[in-house]
């Protein structure tokens, strides 16, 4: 692949020898470029860009899918005065609070895996396996854990804590159950990200630390974490965006958003208001709020990445 004789910045030989031929060439090349880019551009324009514009427009209307009437900021005013909306925001904050745990646990486990103890390859495969199953299936199993006759109650009873509650119908425990299931689900993905990151670290640094008598905890805190910052950041953004935009199916199966709005998050509220209540304009406004949140997170992340590269 690398030819030592070739200069690093390859000159354009055609341009030097026959400028006209090169011009013709680059024109046909650009034309080919447009043709090859066309399918993806058209697809994304029609099914992402246009709908986003529509969602934005309809968020200022009362809309039932057929007719719409302009209400200005009405939907947004109604949204911010809606007590259910604030409960929904609180649920998103609960998920946000779960994110550090969803990162820290995989980080610790990846550290152990990286020590290459007996069977670490097997463990790695097992941990990553849930990545392949759907949120629907995960939700099915989670119900059997958190329900009244579920496994968690049995375990608690075994420990002498005979609470016997249906965690999925408690005002706050339902959201907590969703958050715990979420942490379980992203464990494998984050572990893999951190193992990949640790594989890039210099083992000599660890040897040096060991020679200096540093404890495992100290090396983890003082060497592993700082050197892995790039990976921690990546998994943070991935986990947060998963939490805010990928849990629809899990909530749909586990709680249906209830009790009341006890486990309804922004993304679920869009579905609920749109397809259950039929307030398409109001739901569009909620979708725009969700978009604003995700977009802000992504941009902040990009900025962070850029400033690090400079």
């Amino acid at each position, binding site marked *: 692949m690398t030819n030592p004789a070739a200069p690093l910045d390859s000159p354009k030989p055609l341009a030097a020898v026959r400028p006209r031929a090169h011009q013709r060439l680059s024109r046909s090349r650009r034309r080919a*470029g447009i043709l090859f880019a066309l399918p993806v551009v058209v697809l994304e324009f029609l099914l992402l860009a246009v*709908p986003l514009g529509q*969602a934005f427009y309809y968020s200022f209307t009362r809309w039932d899918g*057929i007719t719409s009437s302009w209400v200005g900021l009405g939907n947004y005013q109604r949204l911010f005065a809606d007590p259910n909306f604030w409960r929904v925001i609180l649920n998103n904050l609960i998920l946000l609070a779960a994110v550090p745990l969803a990162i820290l646990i995989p980080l610790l486990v990846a550290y152990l895996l990286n*020590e290459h103890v007996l069977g670490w390859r097997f*463990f790695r495969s097992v941990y990553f396996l849930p990545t392949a199953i759907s949120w*629907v299936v995960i939700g099915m*199993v989670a119900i059997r854990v958190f329900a009244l006759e579920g496994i968690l109650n049995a375990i608690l009873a075994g420990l002498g804590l005979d609470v016997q509650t249906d965690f999925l119908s408690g005002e706050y425990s339902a959201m907590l159950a969703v958050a715990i299931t979420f942490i379980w689900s992203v464990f494998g993905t984050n572990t893999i990200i951190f193992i990949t990151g640790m594989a890039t670290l210099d083992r000599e640094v660890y040897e040096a630390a060991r020679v200096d008598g540093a404890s495992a905890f100290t090396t983890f805190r003082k060497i592993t974490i700082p050197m892995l910052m790039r990976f921690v950041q990546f998994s943070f953004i991935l986990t947060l965006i998963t939490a805010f935009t990928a849990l629809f199916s899990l909530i749909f199966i586990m709680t249906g958003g209830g009790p009341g709005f006890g486990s309804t998050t922004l993304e679920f509220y869009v579905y609920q208001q749109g397809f259950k209540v039929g307030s398409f304009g109001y739901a569009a406004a909620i979708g725009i709020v969700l*978009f604003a949140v995700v977009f802000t997170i992504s941009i902040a992340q990009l900025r962070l990445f850029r400033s690090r590269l400079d």
Partner: protein
Amino acid sequence: MRPTRRRLTRLVMFAILCVVAVIMLFPFVLMILTSLRSRDQYIAGSGFSLASWQNLFVQMPVLAQLWNSTVVTVGGVLLILVVSTTGGYAFAKLGFRGSGLAFVAILSGMMIPIQSIIIPVYVDIARVVHGVNQFPSAIVVYAAIGSPFATYLMTTYYRSIPTELVEASVMDGASYWQIFRKVMLPLSVPAITTVAVLQVIQIWDDLLVGLLFLQTPDVRTITVGLAVLQNGRVVNIPTLMAGSLVSALPAIIVYLIFQRNLIRGLTMGVNK
């Protein structure tokens, strides 16, 4: 003293990893064991039978739903592969006025949550093309959702292929289409596999798009079928667990075969 202590540390580490493995494998064990009981045996907590598996095939058109899932998954993945390889080739190797801008615009598609646009998409497809309950609608929506990341992966991959290769082929008189087919596609098989594996699992496991665009029983996917069964009036837990296993199995098989590609696709975002 020291070697013993190190061995002890490693033993503790091993024990922790075992506990974590049990927690991660628990759902699979639960699904298998529960599905092997009839409803009465499940309530009684003893005995094994295949009654729930028989019941599953009575309650749910499993094979038809597996077929429907296969149709939308294969269709969606193929469409994603077509647009992401051609797009990646254009952005990485050909270029045109505004290609940089177009590339960034497509990448920013990754930042749009599906829920933010799903209502207009649904209304457009229902009213403009009357496409609800038709496979092509779901396939196109899946492709639109999956293509930004796929295009990003393919573009990054094509950028790593030396441009000289394209230039040399042009001098030999090859057309840009021939270069794409004879040079770029064969070289990018690893990236194509990665995109395909990621998207197969994504689409197979999806609920929302299927729920909205494939509503009637004859076009239902297995994932949607399962969700419908769960929300039904009579909930038969062992049957549900059997259904969960059936729906999870294809994705697990893909995972076991292509684990490496999956990991590569996942971590490609960081190594940029």
